[in-house]
């Protein structure tokens, strides 16, 4: 187990090193100048050149990369050009809405997806199966910005039940912030539940044909015990994988949903940084997202071992 963990952590570091090089290179290969944007229309070429020196952007790329890597190794992701604060602070400020949005959305996706997938599998070929499968297909096809705008129109503009956007006024209690997350989390949860429904259905159908399920039924166990204890538990491995990856993707930023609902999350931070060419923010954030993604993958592998003892090394 320890060897497995050490090997995976070594792999994680290698992946992050590759990501760091690629992120830096791609960021700088893209055209665009943050300083010209920062200074505005009246700035002359001389003004821009002068400011580039101030931000160290006049140095050769290798020098800039070396400096950045050195800082990253010391836990410093750099200073945002536009936000006038360290990237770590900007990320920390975005972590809360993104974390709660992702958790809220994955919970909704699981609460809808697992029962529906289970029901669709158990009543395979019946009307309920067809309805859930159609819903899953629809959910996978609907663009999140469209669903977001529809929910805003109905629940914010017409009914006034939820705020249309944002993460709450300054100083509002935490419950009010969660209130702002209901609509975006519902959008993400509903869209991702489509995937969960399909995975759960397929996984449960596989398990239902296993010998031990037949044995359990022949022992006279109630159908509820057979489904919940023998089928669902064994079907959970692929579902946990999908849920974990969904969570990782959302923590990396549900870019479109955060944009539509103007949530100050990680996705929004990355998008705005890309549009502004805020290099330190793009580099730092993508590196952290990659680290989270790799670590969640590692966590999923560990959960496999707990859920399915056969996987243990």
């Amino acid at each position, binding site marked *: 187990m320890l060897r497995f963990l050490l090997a995976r952590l070594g792999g994680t570091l290698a992946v992050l090193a590759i990501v760091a090089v690629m992120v830096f290179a791609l960021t700088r290969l893209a055209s665009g100048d943050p300083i010209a944007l920062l200074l505005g229309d009246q700035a002359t070429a001389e003004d821009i050149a002068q400011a580039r020196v101030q931000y160290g952007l006049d140095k050769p790329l290798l020098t800039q990369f070396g400096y950045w890597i050195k800082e990253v190794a010391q836990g410093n992701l750099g200073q945002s050009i*536009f936000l006038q604060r360290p990237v770590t602070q900007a990320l920390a400020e975005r972590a809360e809405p993104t974390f709660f949005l992702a958790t809220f959305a994955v919970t909704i996706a699981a609460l809808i997806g697992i029962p529906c997938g289970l029901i669709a599998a158990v009543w395979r070929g019946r009307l309920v199966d067809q309805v859930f499968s159609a819903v899953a297909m629809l959910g996978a096809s609907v663009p999140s910005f469209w669903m977001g705008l529809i929910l805003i129109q109905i629940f914010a503009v017409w009914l006034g*039940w939820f705020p249309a956007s944002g993460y709450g006024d300054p100083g509002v209690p935490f419950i009010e912030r969660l209130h702002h997350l209901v609509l975006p989390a519902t959008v993400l949860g509903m869209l991702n539940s489509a995937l969960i429904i399909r995975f759960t259905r397929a996984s449960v159908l596989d398990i239902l044909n296993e010998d031990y399920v037949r044995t359990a039924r022949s022992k006279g166990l109630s159908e509820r015990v057979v489904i919940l204890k023998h089928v669902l538990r064994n079907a959970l491995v692929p579902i946990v994988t999908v849920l974990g990856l969904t969570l990782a993707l959302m923590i990396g930023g549900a870019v479109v949903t955060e944009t539509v609902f103007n949530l100050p999350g990680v996705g929004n931070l990355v998008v705005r940084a890309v549009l502004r060419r805020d290099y330190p923010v793009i580099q730092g954030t993508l590196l952290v997202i990659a680290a989270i993604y790799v670590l969640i993958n590692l966590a999923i592998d560990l959960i496999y071992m707990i859920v399915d003892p056969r996987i243990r090394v």
Partner: protein
Amino acid sequence: MPALSLRKWISRILSLSALAVPLAAPVQAAPTAANLAMIAEPQTLDPMGTTADLVGTIMQHVYEPLYTFDAKWNVVPMLADGLPKVSKDGLTHTIALRKGVKFHNGREMVADDVVASLQRWMEVSPRGKSVAKEVASIEAKGPNTVELKLKTPYAPLLAQLALPTGMAAILAKETIAPQLKDFIGTGPYKFKERKPDQYTLLTRFEGYASRKEPASGYAGKREALIEELRFVPVPNANTRVEGTLSGQFDYADLLPVESIGRLDKAGASVVPIMTTSFGFPYLVFNTKEGVLASQPLRQAVQMAFGPGEMMAAAFGDTRFFTIEPNHFPQGTPFYSTAGADKYNQRNASAAKDMAAKAGYNGQPVRILASRQYEFHYNMALVMAEQLKRTGIKTELQIVDWATLVQRRNDPKLWDIYVTHSGQFPEPMLSPPQLSEGAPGWWSSPAKQAALSAFNQEMDPAKRGALWGKVQQVVYDEVPYVNVGKFNGLSARAQRLQGYTPAAWPFFWNTTVAAK
């Protein structure tokens, strides 16, 4: 499995989804706070650091200049006690300061603060740097007087000192640094907190010393009637519209013109605001390199253009734009029809002849535009078609805004780029092509002669006539084409009262009723 179990399953799912219901209460905002949806996060809070409108809009509540504009775009005093005393040769401006004006840290403003602030402005502000070329010295003459000496007479000085963008803001001297950390000004609101991409918070400054004159435009009496201003960045235009319709925002800036129908139908709770002559789109020509370095060919292109079609494609609804050759609206000091015969010709055959005479040999005209502003893109499409009609080849380069602002600084990369500007009260404030060195690199004896006469004439009445000569040179040499004028659309909640539409929206003298 029995049917009853299925119903149980469904009822369990429904009961779980019902958890959201207790949270579904209407949002309540503090009665003395206003939520103001802006188009983006400000690039910086340093009022001098950029000429971006958004920074000026927010920070004009915190910082004040020596002069400002009244409702008729006249320059009037703000922190200065009155208009400056100007020596007969037009070189020395003696500026008396108001007494009893306090900074947000409680200290009284004195001449040393003004001198230090203006010196910083001339060092860091793109606008200030251009003024610095004209200034010989600035010094304090006693605690409440500043003397500014020019190298040559420079008529736009007061307008430059009055503009809220790239502002010649008066800062508390002790806070002055290359990177501002404390935002201490004299305005009716003081800076409280900034959470990037969430809000910039300003709170009422209780010690504010207001002018006594009646409010007029940005001038006169300023009163912070709302306790807290929350500038919320909402870059997605649809989100700004929905947030306004749902009552979340008390004000929403720069809404898409397509939303006017929905705002009109929203009932009494939302008030659409149209700001006339809000700005002008303009097409900058590369006069330094490439196919359009040829002035006769630029004239041919101008002959081919139909600004009417471009504005229609850009803004759709005729309530939102006007097609007119005068660069400044009728009724303003700089209204002139000079060069009008060259505007909106849309004459393909004449343009073709002119292009042939100019020696056009089929090189593509590279049009640089961005979809950051959808109307830029729409105009670029129409422009390309109008040029094709005359046999001029085009190459559309549609890039994001960050790329455009970089590429336009390289004369090898483009021939025309699409941009826009706010409609400012003084010609020398925009477009930057009227100065030397801006992308386009327009420089000619006729330009220098016309602008020199215009900038050195201190009599406002004569300056109006002299602007006509500059406008004529612009039509003759075609360094840029001023396409027309567009109106801005924004909206406010009914409960936000006393708001005066302005190019840089301000919220002093404005109240907000409880929801």
